């Protein structure tokens, strides 16, 4: 049973939490929502740092909380990365990294010291005191320290939010590498959708102490009923596989569910996996196959539904492929165009995609 099943209900200082979700214990699951929606509290409940009056938690079939049963945090096989790195100032970087490792003596470590040092690029920091590191370095050490405690579940509470843009860009590639080289499930709290689009496979959407939706990232991003689709920078995420590279034009062909897309870049060997991000404002619809257009990605799609967005726009949900069996895409068009062209759900039309962003992520 490779799932995390969590239910927490209770109040704390005027704030009520009432959440229940069930996510696969695999890949990265993002807990996403505005500040103060309770996502950090949920993460702390999973770690055992908070105890809600009513709660149930089982991780991969092992019950950590149920009724009066409550496993204290130090007996849970978790790693926790806090918002601020919170390194121990009385220890060196090595001392910090080994703190958790020392305390797992009776287990054979699956995650080795040297591997973590290499993965997070820590080798030249090892002998320094924790207090002289930069923000990004500190957070990398904190991540390494959590990994070395041999967690079966890694919990990360907005690990990038206390960092400036530069340090963030410094750490993101490490997080992506982590995702690809270690098979530890990660619960990742964030209020930054671009981080979520880049890192997450699953999404738990939270709002004022409740879970609004939970499911695969692609599904939730493309669900017009959820507030995500109404955001100005609303986008869908598509998992893609490299099909080939045409050096004459410098274009890569990528297969997504139900279609192929051309991306101006060489994306490495055939078969490599990538994630693409398509903004709903970069997708337009036309009734016939466009001719004489500079847009290279023009695909047959089937209209599933359309929702008005504000006064003058429509948010149209389509699926790739003439039969509508492929991945979902959102198109943001004007209400006038929608009326003038008399589009109907169920129709097959053409989507022109102005921009395909590559979410830098090597799986």
């Amino acid at each position, binding site marked *: 049973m490779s799932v995390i099943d969590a239910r927490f209900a209770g109040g704390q200082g005027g704030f009520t939490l009432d959440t229940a979700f069930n996510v696969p214990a695999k890949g990265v699951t993002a807990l996403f929502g505005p500040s103060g929606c309770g996502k950090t509290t949920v993460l702390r409940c999973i770690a055992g740092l908070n105890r809600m009056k009513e709660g149930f938690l089982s991780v991969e079939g092992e019950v950590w909380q149920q009724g009066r049963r409550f496993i204290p945090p130090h007996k849970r096989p978790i790693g926790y990365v806090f918002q601020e790195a919170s390194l121990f*100032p009385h220890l060196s970087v090595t001392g910090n990294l080994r*703190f958790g490792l020392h305390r797992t003596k009776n287990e054979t470590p699956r995650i080795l010291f040297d591997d973590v040092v290499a993965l997070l690029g820590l080798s030249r920091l090892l002998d320094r*005191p*924790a207090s*002289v590191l930069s923000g990004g370095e500190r957070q990398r050490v904190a991540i390494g320290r959590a990994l070395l*405690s041999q967690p079966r579940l890694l919990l990360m509470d907005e690990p990038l939010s206390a960092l400036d843009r530069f340090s963030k860009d410094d750490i993101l590639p490490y997080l992506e590498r982590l995702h690809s080289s270690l098979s530890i499930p990660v619960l990742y709290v964030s209020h930054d959708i671009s981080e979520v689009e880049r890192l997450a496979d699953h999404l738990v959407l939270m709002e004022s102490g409740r879970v609004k939706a939970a499911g695969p990232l692609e599904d939730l991003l493309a669900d017009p009923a959820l507030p995500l689709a109404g955001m100005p920078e609303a986008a869908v995420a598509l998992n893609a596989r490299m099909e080939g590279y045409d050096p004459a034009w410098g274009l890569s062909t990528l297969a997504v569910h139900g279609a192929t897309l051309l991306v101006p870049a060489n994306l490495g060997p055939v078969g490599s996996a990538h994630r693409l991000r398509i903004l709903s404002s970069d997708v337009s619809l036309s009734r016939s196959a466009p001719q004489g257009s500079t847009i290279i990605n023009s695909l047959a799609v089937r209209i599933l539904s359309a929702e008005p967005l504000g006064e003058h726009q429509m948010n149209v949900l389509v699926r790739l492929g003439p039969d509508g069996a492929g991945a979902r895409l959102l198109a943001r068009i004007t209400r006038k165009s929608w009326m003038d062209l008399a589009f109907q759900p169920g129709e097959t039309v053409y989507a022109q995609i102005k921009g395909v962003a590559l979410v830098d992520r090597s799986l």
Partner: protein
Amino acid sequence: MGEIVWLTLKLATISTLVLLVVGTPLAWWLARTKAWWKEIVAAIVALPIVLPPTVLGFYLLVVMSPDSLLSTLLGGRGLAFSFEGLVIGSVIYSLPFVVQPIRNAFEAFGERPLEVAATLRASPLDTFFTVAVPLASPGFLTGAVLGFAHTIGEFGVVLMIGGSIPGETKVLSIAIFDYVESLQWDKAHLLSAGMLVFSFAVILLMMLAEKGLARRRAGWGRA
């Protein structure tokens, strides 16, 4: 005179050790508990700061007299006018000066380091010794030095419960008083000047050590 200095240092050292053993858990409890009555306990611990030492000494004398309940429990042996009695008196008298800095140090670093340790599989006891105590080390230094210095300097309590028995209870502050009473000014001068130099050295060393500790780790906030 060597005996006086030796006895004084012995009393201060033993008292400081007892103070750290008794004061540390007390300071930890005061820093962490959510019990509503913790400030009552804190006030009792702090009493010797405001209480005249003679009042404290008087009550200790009552408790330690040979026919008190305590002495009966100890097999009819009164602790008054004994070295052990002095240690107990000193510990009670100096307790606030040890507990307060350690409590402040425990409170200063907050919950976060303890939570981090818990998520790294350290049990609460393990966390206490490997995280809380090292992080609070400046507080321990201040507490130990203040406790030691206060024990050396105390007069009122010792006078009440210790008297002036050579080799047993005749400590420095009492000896200076006795020398002045018997007009032996040169000896009073010698001991007083020694105390002055000692006190200055202690305060200076403590300040330097605290500064050094603070510099070595630029604080929890940055790390």
